[in-house]
């Protein structure tokens, strides 16, 4: 992990309140697993950094792609950055999605702004010859992104809250029907969605990626702590450095 001034080489809107930012620098070479994140200092005006997951990596060009959603003043200010600007970035942080050797068929389940890290994961899975089926949930068509990219990697099912794209409903409506067609699932999205998926697919090996308000982003401040089941001696996990990816049963959702 390092602190680096990365150069913004591309920055554009991809969906409602959702932006794609490509950053160039050494951090790109150091990404180990899909699901890791970078911790961004938006400007002097904001005291805390903003964690953003890595959506894609191009090691040949020293570039990482981020997709972020405007959720407050900090991310709003981030949208004002221009190509060529330098950004104070700490990363790559956290433990990403592990890809066990015996994975043959994977199910990917993403919700909203939880979708980005799953794209780099899906690419890695396909590269390793693993069959990927993806279910993505968005609020509406105008908030959806990465649709064609996921389609190119395998079967894709989309659900939206209002039915404006794909099927109207929740990701769990679809994942239930897909049972039996995968040996491992990988999921990232709102905690309520992760909880529903983990309950529904309780008997399947699964990994989930969590989100929490962070302080330092390196494991020192204990801001982003989650509970573990009672039989765990340590009693907690830090989302920033023990996660953000956990085995589905490792933490209490």
């Amino acid at each position, binding site marked *: 992990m390092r602190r680096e001034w990365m150069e913004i080489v591309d920055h554009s809107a991809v969906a409602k309140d959702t932006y794609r930012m490509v950053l160039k620098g050494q951090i790109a070479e150091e990404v180990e697993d899909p699901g890791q994140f970078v911790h961004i200092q938006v400007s002097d005006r904001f005291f805390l950094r903003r964690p953003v997951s890595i959506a894609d990596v191009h090691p040949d060009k020293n570039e990482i792609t981020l997709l972020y959603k405007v959720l407050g003043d900090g991310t709003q200010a981030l949208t004002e950055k221009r190509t060529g600007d330098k950004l104070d970035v700490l990363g790559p942080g956290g433990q990403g999605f592990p890809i066990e050797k015996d994975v043959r068929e994977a199910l990917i389940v993403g919700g909203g702004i939880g979708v980005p890290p799953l794209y780099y994961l899906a690419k890695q899975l396909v590269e390793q010859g693993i069959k990927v089926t993806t279910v993505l949930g968005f609020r509406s068509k105008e908030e959806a992104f990465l649709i064609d990219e996921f389609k190119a990697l395998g079967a894709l099912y989309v659900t939206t809250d209002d039915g404006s794209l794909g099927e109207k409903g929740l990701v769990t409506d679809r994942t239930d029907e897909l049972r039996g067609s995968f040996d491992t699932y990988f999921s990232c999205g709102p905690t309520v969605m992760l909880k529903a998926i983990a309950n529904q697919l309780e008997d399947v090996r699964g990994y989930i990626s969590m989100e929490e308000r962070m302080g330092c*982003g390196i*494991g020192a*401040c*204990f801001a982003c702590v989650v509970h573990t089941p009672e039989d765990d001696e340590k009693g907690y996990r830090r989302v920033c450095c023990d996660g953000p990816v956990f085995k589905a049963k490792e933490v209490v959702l």
Partner: protein
Amino acid sequence: MDISVSLPGLKLKNPIMPASGCFGFGKEFAQFYDLSELGAVILKAATGEKRYGNEAPRVAETSSGMLNAIGLQNPGVEKIVKEEIPFLKTYDTPLIANVSGSTMEEYEQVAATICKEVDALELNISCPNVKEGGVQFGTDPRLAEEVTARVRAVSTVPVYVKLSPNVTDIVALAKAAAAGGADGLSMINTLTGMRIDPATRRPIISNQTGGLSGPAVKPVAIRMIHQVYQAVNLPIIGMGGIETTDDIIEYLLAGASAVAVGSANFKNPLICKELIEQLPEALERYGFSSIEEVIGGAHHETTASGLFRA
């Protein structure tokens, strides 16, 4: 320029150390630089037993700072001694253990256990984020004096009492700590605050209130140190919103003999190392030729009494 400072129990290569709770037990920062460069390390708070702390969210950003309500999460003093301190001991820097508790007895127990492993104690009678103990000892001068005296009696190393700014009269608390036998003071802890999310109509932090830190609190800390320096003859470790060498000089001028860098470690994990490197040049820029000259320099004193405190 020699920027070393000697304080009770502490020979500091430089007057800069990370503040308690902002540096864990050092491991995370050791990947960024050699911890031997630090003046000292103040450890994350230790309590008698393991504590989970508060529910998340535990932090919220504010203008020029942040609120936190971690709730003294730590593995308990025994585990800290066994599993955390050995790593820090591999570095050539003094260690200050932050001692916390809910009862007098717990403070004594933690202090007696951990004092054997460190160079000094920072007695935390000022954490605003725990329901029992903590800050009640830091806001009532009688209790502050008693807990200081009891911890001082069991400790084999100097005790620095960490004062809470959430009081009307900081000098009364500083005097109480001095009367209890404190070897030094550490100030300030965070100021209690709250933020409410207009969308949910609820406080952002699950504990509702949190401790405010960052540059927003610096003027409060400077004022309090300036007051206490005049009233109590004890060395002060100053903290609150330090981000630059100018901030450090301001603290020293107010009367601190050394400083701790807190939440700035979250913005920039290399901040302590960078400030240590920049400090000699900054001192020269303002015409100082030694650290002693800066300490208490804002007070119009006839003798260089700063010399005798360091």
